[in-house]
């Protein structure tokens, strides 16, 4: 019975793909010529934008202080940074809300966003899908538990229910370093922390700056059990066909480093230049 269904599913799936694929191929066939023509000329020095004159940016604003939403406005260090970058490039920044685990795909697709900034850890596997700019911030992971939790060491996490943000480096770390855990992915960090509070999961793993911020603000019933030194760095991602944009952003970052803009932003958002 199951087998029958599976084979039908497979046949159906393949048929579906074949149809959509043909459509896509024919559709792309028409447009690819023009885009390849423009990208070949752009590749060296000029970058392309989804909307001319605007840097269209995707972010997952659930990661204060890096990016978060307040009264409907997307704010945070990353956001301030990318707006300054846009200013240096003479562009407007249009920052839009997207799920974290769709950022890489969206940027790789190349049709909806020019770049994404969202405390994205530079990672060679992500780099296969998208291009990273230079690193703009250093981070580590943190293990966060409820205050008074019976989990008191990293080793005690083995065999426990653990949560992390879907697609995050915390997720990768948990899966790779902990044994026999019941792992639950969450799309947004508030959900993850809500689940931690219910006791359904014993610990959550995410970036140390965001963890420290949550605990200092809304989540004073939680605590950092341990900082995991991963030395990971955040980068801005752009489409691989648009490396010129990454270079332009790198230049802007260098200028901002030189003219003290970055130090000012760090002072503003973290209370200290890092």
């Amino acid at each position, binding site marked *: 019975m199951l087998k029958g269904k599976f084979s039908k599913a497979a046949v159906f799936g393949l048929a579906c793909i074949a*149809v959509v694929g043909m459509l896509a191929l024919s559709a792309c066939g028409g447009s690819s010529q023009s885009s390849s023509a423009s990208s070949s000329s752009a590749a060296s020095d000029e970058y392309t934008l989804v909307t001319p004159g605007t840097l269209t940016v995707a972010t997952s604003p659930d990661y204060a202080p890096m990016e978060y939403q307040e009264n409907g406005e997307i704010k945070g260090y990353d956001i301030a940074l990318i707006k300054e970058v846009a200013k240096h490039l003479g562009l407007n920044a249009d920052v839009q809300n997207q799920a974290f685990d*769709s950022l890489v*795909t969206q940027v790789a697709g190349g049709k909806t966003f020019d770049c994404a900034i969202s405390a994205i850890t530079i990672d060679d596997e992500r780099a296969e899908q998208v291009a990273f700019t230079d*690193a703009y911030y*250093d981070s580590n992971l943190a293990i966060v538990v409820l205050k008074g939790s019976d989990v008191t060491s990293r080793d005690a996490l083995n065999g426990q229910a653990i949560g992390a943000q879907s697609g995050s480096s915390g997720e990768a770390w948990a899966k790779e370093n902990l044994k026999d855990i019941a792992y639950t992915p969450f*799309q947004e960090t508030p959900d993850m922390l809500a*689940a931690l509070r*219910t006791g359904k*999961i014993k610990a959550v793993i995410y970036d140390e700056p965001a963890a420290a911020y949550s605990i200092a603000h809304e989540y004073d019933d939680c605590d950092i059990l341990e900082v995991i030194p991963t030395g990971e760095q955040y980068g801005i991602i752009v489409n691989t066909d648009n490396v010129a944009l990454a270079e332009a952003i790198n230049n802007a970052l260098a200028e901002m480093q030189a003219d003290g803009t970055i130090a000012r932003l760090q002072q503003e958002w973290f209370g200290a230049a890092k």
Partner: protein
Amino acid sequence: MAAYLKPVLKHGLVTALALSLVLTFISPLLAGAMSVDVTTAKSNETGTGSVLGGEPTRVTWEALVGDGEQVSAVRVELPEGSSITDDSSVKVTVLEGTTRLSPENTAVMNKGDASVDVSFAAPLQPGQRLRLEMYKVSLPNVNGEVTLSGTYTLANGQVLDLAPSPAIEVTHASTAEKISNWLGEQPAVQAWNSVTFLRLFFQPELIVSSIPIVAVGWLISLGLVLVGFPLAIPIGLIAAFMKIARARILHVLAAIYTGVVRGTPLFLQIYIAFFGLPLLGIDINQYVLAIIVLAVNSGAYLCEIFRAGIQSVPNGQFEAARSLGMTGPQTMFYVIIPQTIRRVIPTMTSEFILLYKDTSLLAAVGVMELMLYSRSIVSLTGNMTPYIVAACFYLIVTLPLIRVVGNLEKRLALADSGGSAPKKKGRKNRRGAFAQMREEIAVNTEQAAEELQEQVRIEAHVDDASGPLDMDEALDELQDGAAVDAQIADADERGAQR
């Protein structure tokens, strides 16, 4: 890279250089060897936690510089049978506590003996952590544990062996993974994948490797709804009776229940149940809780469906039953409800389809169901293909049911218009709605054809039939009522056309 971020670094380098000169001479005197405390490999099997031998993976290796040692170079040797290719890369990270340092270094990957050499312009200091991430390297294709070995060179040129690393568990690749990898090497597939849209949404390798994983989620989703929906039926029935009851209090209670549940998004109900109840000290297994939430939600919708169904039964049915001396409950149970079921099956089936799709909302609170299984692969690969696979798994269930609803509605319309009611139909009304549905679909074609002939004969003699029976329509209907397989195939065909 990112040197501008680290004004501190220059200080660090100067200090390190100065210190290294001094320490070079005294270090061998101090005890403590470089200790390798982390070696892990990222799972390279879609959706599971396993590390497959013979397939590219990312190996992470960390070591702490021992007391009194100054390390100027490290050589990490992958176990016998490992391979490094042109695609492989290595990322070097040095940390002091939790602070990232960026010492000048060169890292070389040796394909010949599957090793990595890292050397530092200035030696690493005690307490500093060296972290190597080796991308796209393959561990030996074995079932069992492997360890990494190697040597390190002190600033004074002394070469020491590294203690064996913690073990990495490696397994053989599964069939799906093998097919997937084989597919990835095919020129046609590579050409297909060169189109961004196709690569991101219809990557053949990922379709193959994600099917077994997503199938697990599919079974869970199906399980949730197959348990939750039958539970919703008595809830809905009781609420429906309360709504038509004379006692005002019952009516009000039922109205509050259906009003609140139907008036708020299921998404919110799930949040409240999953995050609120545990805080009240009510600790329920998340799958059980998921089933309860689904049943309570669907019960409210079924209540309205049942109420409408009961009220659509002509008053004459109540009167006939009562005039035969049947009590209220007897009338309800033996006369009204059987007729109601027949009338509500199409809408109930639609409600089932909705509920089945709504299981995806449980992903937000971390219930591992179809959506979350596919998302876990999406987040791992940055590719949307598993969502397409998930869509197909939803359709496996919904398309045939949508078809069934259509057929049932057609039959009902036909029966209500005084036309033919296939002989089998009424007999099953007292059984479960789904049992009936299944049987109706599975009606043997030959048997049905016989019935049709009989039907037509009867119809010919029926004088008060409201209209002549449309032969074509009746035949259509019988064909619709053929075997399940035919239905699914047919539905698939339709799905493909859309």
